[in-house]
């Protein structure tokens, strides 16, 4: 297309000299054609590149026509290529002009093409068409404007040959005909107008184009401040809330504007700073939400930091590129390391860069420092403008304060930003801020709370209120000066450094803040020589930084940098003081003091106020001591506790203040002037006022602290609270409130840390040996500790470890706290607020605490051991068991504790065994409720003691009987109470069992019972120490037989006894203890041969023991099987000869009976077997018939078998064995009628005897014999005896005698009976 076709003609000097158009894509072709054409065009355009040469001239028409190509890609590429070419051509022109002041003709021609191209692009922008192309056109125009406008930033450095947009119109040599800078600028304005016009046409633009326009305008404004005003007013005039007719995306457009404004705010060019207010207002209008506001604020500051740093560095090093790269590069990620103090001065430049550098949105802390650094051009009223002039020389803290002030000045709107800001500030920096702020504090505080009108508060109403607000929000974090205290003290006194002082102290603060930080933290301070060196280095560095002298004249005090040096000097006041001690100063002391007066009053007067208000509890009221003395005072203190040091400073400062107060008014640094107009007098506060102040302070801190918790930067307030507690003396509502606070967030809100801070602080005062303070602190300490401990117990569940943690980490445990611990362990007094089921937990909790104290706190070891040992004798079994577990499992293995524990346990065991001596001892450990129980028992003790000597010497059985009498002396539970610990120890140390054996004989029954209860478990768990036990058994002390038996029983209960044990026991049986009872547990392992010899002895044992023995015998071992079969047992029993074996017959019969009772073992079959064996014995066992009768009683079905036995006995002429004969007859009588045929086998005389003994047999027997089958086989005599033969014989002989006989029969019975 021809340029004339509607392109607005480039005007004036920009008219193209020749217009040779080479139509590339005249008419629309087919799609294929188009695309092929497009490709060709694209390739061509890409070839154009940025190399400017004469040959390119030929292609220029193509470039131009490509703008009219159908394919948007070609058009886009055309614009892109054109843009590059544009710069390249300009550069080439400038180069040629620079070299020869002349431009070659082809280049001139080239330039005219470029002008034409520019015109064409502008035309594209104005015509309807693809937004994509228009967007690029906008970009092209932006680039052009940038080319045409001088770049102020490019500080005169000549461009060299190179790629990219390095052309700067200001480098052009003036006066050449083609490229006149002035002309170019006019052209730039014109082009800019084009863009601005677009903005005005917003309603007709697509959103995306509008956004591109705004972005471009913003880019131009930022890069060419000259154009800023025009662009800004256009943007400000642009109504972001317009109705988008073309459906543009309003919020995106608005955001785009926002970004532009934010970008402007980040520029520190004077023209930008002037318009801050306007921009901020506009921003508010765009995004009224607070949240956006604060985000904006952050982004703004953080980026601006980067800009400025890059600018600074560029100026100083003259190498913008490298620095710019480094800005976004690695430097930001360097975690700075604490530099050696001596090289501070050398470190300064590097540190400044680091400090100023960080641009890292993801790193919140760094962000905070950025923010801290960026108060200079905050644009929030008078603060900012004044500060900005010296912003770079301010310490971070001062910058921060200024910024906080600015935020506060915004009122409600700034509040949220402020909160966010503060939450991001590192504790150290915050501490510095607070120290700074405190200088402004007293007057306001006095005004606010004491209602003391110092006459000046009305003059500057806004600023005091600001600083008081600053205080309210920042005092929370006053940590830096005090946080070092706990750790210092911890190392010096307890040796535990449990508190974190925020690390990398100086990593982000520059020199002045370094020096401002509390000098006490600085190790240099301890060494006067070094402190001098420090001071020197400071002065050097100060010179580096702001060319101010160490000793500013009063007249210089009107500018901010001086304030810094003052601040430094103030911090040096103490080190200067030390300097006075060590070496003669350059000046007389008086001068020095005077200097201090003049230079310090600024801060001094304010410091005095706040310090006095908060510290005067400890401050000796004597303010008359000389300044030098007061300076020396803290230094002389052996322990550099925080408070003493601070007091020293306070004295010092306050005196200076007194001396210098008349001069003060003249010293008015700019931003402190309001404080200095009048000097606030020293206010002595009433006690109530003090406590009220304290209360206010603590409440405020705690409340703010809660918010800060969320961000995790709450650390800082801990030391401050600690000091406040130290001052209030741990009394009253304040501390209660604080304790409640501690408890509420014990875990989350770091209550523990707070508590520790308070405790360590108080303890530090205690051991600082300042008489008046330490006693107060001691009582405060105790109260506070107890208070916290109690609240912990009351409010947290027993499972909570906080209690133990608190105690074990507290620097010092007063007796009362140990008493409390003891009560807890004994569950005294803690029932009321706990459920009964949870009381046990409290005991555990106490014990755990005791345990940790024993482990971790040697000084309290003995006391805690006592507590837990007492607890191990507790009357409640549950409590006792817990304590015993602790003692035996955890404490007894400890070297230092084992002896104590063992001795204690032995003493308790012996005391309960030897009643006489124990009464006094044991009553000591009884808790109150037990005392009465004991008293009631005492009455019995007297009576029973008479019996005791006899009892203790008797054997086991007698002893048991005797001790029955002794039951009242000591109850089982009582015995348990005092012996449990010992047995628990036994399981850890088996050799202690010896003592148990030793005392067993003389121990009261209750103790024995207790022993009996414990021994089984004990023995079972003694696997490893079996030998010791064997040794004990092999030689048991007098009277310990019962125990030996118990042990043996236990040992053999679940396993077969070892051969060693059997040998030992056998030996024992044969030598010392001839009691078969001790063998019983072994019996199962005995063989038949071993059992038989001792069998009578077993039978001779009491029945229960025999039964036990019987069971063992029959049980046998897995290997050998039973020693005796049941039948054999029965036979063995019958084999016992009462006379020869010395076993009472009764015992034997009992043994038999015992056998018969076990019908499952001694079955019918067993009985039959043993009976048939026994019946063959000669002589028959004495109890044979008894056994037979018992057998038939037990098993009636044995009757046939028994008849067989009886028959055998008849053949054995049983009647000849009188004792058995009786039994035989009894058996026969019992077993009638089965026994009839046996009876009939008896010889008639014995039958007669039998019948005469059991007359009831006669009639049934006679009728039995009268049966025809029987009669024939019976001898006549028998028949006759039964009266069956009588009739028959009478019939053949005579009837008379028959009748006689019959009548005789009756009488003959009597006769027989008589015979």
């Amino acid at each position, binding site marked *: 297309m021809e340029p004339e076709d509607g392109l607005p003609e480039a005007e004036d000097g920009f008219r193209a000299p020749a217009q040779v158009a080479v139509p590339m894509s005249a008419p629309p072709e087919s799609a294929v054609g188009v*695309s092929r054409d497009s490709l060709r065009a694209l390739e061509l355009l890409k070839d154009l590149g940025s190399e400017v040469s004469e040959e390119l001239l030929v292609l220029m028409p193509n470039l131009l026509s490509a703008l009219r190509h159908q394919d948007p890609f070609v058009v886009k590429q055309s614009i892109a290529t054109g843009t590059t070419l544009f710069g390249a051509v300009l550069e080439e022109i400038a180069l040629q002009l620079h070299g020869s002041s002349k431009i070659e003709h082809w280049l001139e021609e080239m330039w005219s093409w470029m002008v034409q191209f520019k015109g064409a692009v502008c035309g594209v922008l104005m015509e309807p068409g693809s937004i994509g192309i228009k967007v690029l056109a906008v*970009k092209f125009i932006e680039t052009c404007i940038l080319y045409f406008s001088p770049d102020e930033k490019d500080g005169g450095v000549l461009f060299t040959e190179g790629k990219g947009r390095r052309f700067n119109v200001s480098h052009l040599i003036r006066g050449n005909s083609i490229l006149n800078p002035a002309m170019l600028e006019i052209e730039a304005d014109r082009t800019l107008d084009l863009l601005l016009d677009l903005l005005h046409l917003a309603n007709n633009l697509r959103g*995306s184009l509008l956004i591109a326009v705004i972005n471009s305008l913003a880019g131009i404004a930022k890069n060419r401040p000259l154009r800023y005003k025009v662009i800004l007013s256009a943007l400000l005039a642009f109504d972001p809330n317009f109705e988008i007719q*073309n459906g543009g995306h309003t919020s995106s457009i608005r955001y785009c504007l926002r970004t532009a404004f934010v970008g402007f705010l980040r520029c520190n060019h004077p023209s930008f700073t002037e318009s801050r207010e306007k921009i901020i207002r506009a921003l508010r209008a765009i995004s009224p939400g607070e949240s956006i506001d604060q985000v904006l604020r952050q982004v703004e500051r953080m*980026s601006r930091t980067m800009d400025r740093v890059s600018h600074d560095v560029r100026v100083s090093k003259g190498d913008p590129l490298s620095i710019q790269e480094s800005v*976004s590069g690695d430097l930001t990620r360097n975690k700075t390391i604490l530099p050696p103090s001596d090289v501070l001065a050398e470190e300064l430049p590097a540190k400044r860069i680091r400090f100023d550098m960080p641009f890292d*949105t*993801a790193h919140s802390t760094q962000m905070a420092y950025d923010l801290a650094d960026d108060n200079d051009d905050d644009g929030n009223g008078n603060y900012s403008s004044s500060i900005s002039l010296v912003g770079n020389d301010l310490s971070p803290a001062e910058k921060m304060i200024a910024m906080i002030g600015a935020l506060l000045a915004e009122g409600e709107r700034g509040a949220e930003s402020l909160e966010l800001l503060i939450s991001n500030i590192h504790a150290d920096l915050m501490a510095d801020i607070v120290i700074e702020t405190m200088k402004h504090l007293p007057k306001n505080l006095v005004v606010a709370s004491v209602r003391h009108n110092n006459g000046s508060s009305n003059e500057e109403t806004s600023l005091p209120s600001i600083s008081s607000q600053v205080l309210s929000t920042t005092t929370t974090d006053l940590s830096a000066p005090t946080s070092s205290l706990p750790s210092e003290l911890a190392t010096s006194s307890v040796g535990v450094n449990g508190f974190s002082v925020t690390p990398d102290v100086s990593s982000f603060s520059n020199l002045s803040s370094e020096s401002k930080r509390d000098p006490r933290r600085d190790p240099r301070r301890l060494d006067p020589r070094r402190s001098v060196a420090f001071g020197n280095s400071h002065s050097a560095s100060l010179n580096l930084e702001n060319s101010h002298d160490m000793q500013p004249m009063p007249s210089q005090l009107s500018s901010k940098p001086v304030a810094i040096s003052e601040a430094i000097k103030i911090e040096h006041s103490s080190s200067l003081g030390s300097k006075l001690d060590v070496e003669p100063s350059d000046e007389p002391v008086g001068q020095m003091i005077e200097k201090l007066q003049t230079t310090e009053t600024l801060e001094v007067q304010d410091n005095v106020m706040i310090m006095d208000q908060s510290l005067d509890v400890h401050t000796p009221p004597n303010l008359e001591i000389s300044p030098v003395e007061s300076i020396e005072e803290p230094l002389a203190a052996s322990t550099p506790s925080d408070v003493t040091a601070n007091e020293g400073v306070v004295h010092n400062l306050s005196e200076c203040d007194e001396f210098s107060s008349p001069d003060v008014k003249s010293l008015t640094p700019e931003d402190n002037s309001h404080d200095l107009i009048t000097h606030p007098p020293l206010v002595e506060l009433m006690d109530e006022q003090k406590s009220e102040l304290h209360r206010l302070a603590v409440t405020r801190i705690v409340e703010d602290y809660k918010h800060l918790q969320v961000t995790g930067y709450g650390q800082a307030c801990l030391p401050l609270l600690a000091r406040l507690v130290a001052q209030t003396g741990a009394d009253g509502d304040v501390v209660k409130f604080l304790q409640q606070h501690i408890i509420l967030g014990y875990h989350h809100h770091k209550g523990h840390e707070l508590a520790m801070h308070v405790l360590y602080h108080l303890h530090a005062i205690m051991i600082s040996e300042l008489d008046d303070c330490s006693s107060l602190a001691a009582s405060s300490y105790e109260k506070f500790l107890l208070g916290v401990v109690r609240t912990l117990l009351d409010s947290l569940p027993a499972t909570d470890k906080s209690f133990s943690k608190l105690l074990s980490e507290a620097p010092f445990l007063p007796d009362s706290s140990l008493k409390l611990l003891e009560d807890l362990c004994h569950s005294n007094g803690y029932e009321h607020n706990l459920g009964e089921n949870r009381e046990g937990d409290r005991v555990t909790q106490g014990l755990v605490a005791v345990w940790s104290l024993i482990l971790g706190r040697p000084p309290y070891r003995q006391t805690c051991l006592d507590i837990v040992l007492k607890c191990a004798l507790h009357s409640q079994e549950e409590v006792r068991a817990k304590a015993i577990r602790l003692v035996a499992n955890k404490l007894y293995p400890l070297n230092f504790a084992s002896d104590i524990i063992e001795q204690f346990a032995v003493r308790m065991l012996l005391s309960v065994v030897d009643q006489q001596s124990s009464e006094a001892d044991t009553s000591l450990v009884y808790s109150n409720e037990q005392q009465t129980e004991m008293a009631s028992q005492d009455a019995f003790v007297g009576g029973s003691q008479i019996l005791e000597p006899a009892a203790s010497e008797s054997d086991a059985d007698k002893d048991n009987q005797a001790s029955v009498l002794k039951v009242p002396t000591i109850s089982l539970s009582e015995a348990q109470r005092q012996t449990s610990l010992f047995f628990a120890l036994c399981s850890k140390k088996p050799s202690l069992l010896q003592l148990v054996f030793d005392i067993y004989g003389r121990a009261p029954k209750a103790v024995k019972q207790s022993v009996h209860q414990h021994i089984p478990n004990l023995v079972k768990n003694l696997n490893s120490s079996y030998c010791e036990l064997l040794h004990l058994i092999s030689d048991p002390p007098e009277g310990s037989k019962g125990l030996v038996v118990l042990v043996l029983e236990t040992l053999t209960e679940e396993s077969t006894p070892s051969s060693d044990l059997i040998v030992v026991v056998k030996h024992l049986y044969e030598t010392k203890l001839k009691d078969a009872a001790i063998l019983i547990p072994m019996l199962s392992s005995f063989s038949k041969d071993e059992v038989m010899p001792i069998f009578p002895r077993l039978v001779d044992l009491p029945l229960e023991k025999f039964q036990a023995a019987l069971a063992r015998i029959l049980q046998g071992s897995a290997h050998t099987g039973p020693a005796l079969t049941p039948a054999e047992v029965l036979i063995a029993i019958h084999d016992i000869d009462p006379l020869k074996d010395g076993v009472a017959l009764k015992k034997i019969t009992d043994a038999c009976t015992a056998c018969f009772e076990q019908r499952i073992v001694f079955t019918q079959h067993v009985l039959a077997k043993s009976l048939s064996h026994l019946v063959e014995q000669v002589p028959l066992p004495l109890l044979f018939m008894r056994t037979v009768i018992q057998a038939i009683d037990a098993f009636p079905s044995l009757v046939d078998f028994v008849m067989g036995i009886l028959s055998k006995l008849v053949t054995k002429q049983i009647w000849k064995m009188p004792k058995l004969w009786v039994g035989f007859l009894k058996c026969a009588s019992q077993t009638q009628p089965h026994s009839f045929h046996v009876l009939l086998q008896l010889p008639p005389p014995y039958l007669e005897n039998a019948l005469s003994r059991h007359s009831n047999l006669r009639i049934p027997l006679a009728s039995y014999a009268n049966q025809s089958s029987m009669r024939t086989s019976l001898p006549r005599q028998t028949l006759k005896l039964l009266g069956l033969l009588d009739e028959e014989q009478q019939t053949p002989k005579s009837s008379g005698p028959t009748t006689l006989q019959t009548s005789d029969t009756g009488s003959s019975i009597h006769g027989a009976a008589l015979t």
Partner: protein
Amino acid sequence: MGAKLRYAMVCSSNQNRSMEAHALLKRHGFDVSSYGTGAHVKLPGPSLREPNVYDFGTPYKFMHDELRRKDPDLYKRNGILPMLKRNLGVKNAPQRWQDNAADGCFDVVVTFEEKVFNIVIEDLSNRKQVLIRSVLIINLEVKDNHEEAATGGKLALELCQEIESADCWEDAIDDIVAAFERQHKRKLLYTISFY
């Protein structure tokens, strides 16, 4: 139009949101990359105060193995291990947006957080814009948790499909954004920058 657009998904740590979208878009055949703008890659740890911090460029595999070693239960439960596993299937390691300018031009950059959006804009404007190629930066606010990321990934996909289907996104973007906001009740922000 023929040319496929190049997409970048950008979040803070290049772990969750951007990777979710990256994985999804990749599955749908998009030419897509992903980045994070943070200083470090931060993954949740046992507590809020103890995050696991890695440098960009640390392979996902390494993180995965290390966390699995540390506390397999915890990191399985909170979804970190599955996430890392997903990520290491997509690419090797998290990449930092600011450090990867060499990756070339993107046509569309989707950010998932306003902060990230701002950083990307800032970073682009700090680069030397010599190519004169426009780039669309869209912010789609997505909370940094697994559920939201999954939703956000789908939304991003839909958005990108819309953009892809347009002849010229510069022309269509206002409509696309408006339609998207209407449909999903989600606020979008977009701006245009240049390479």
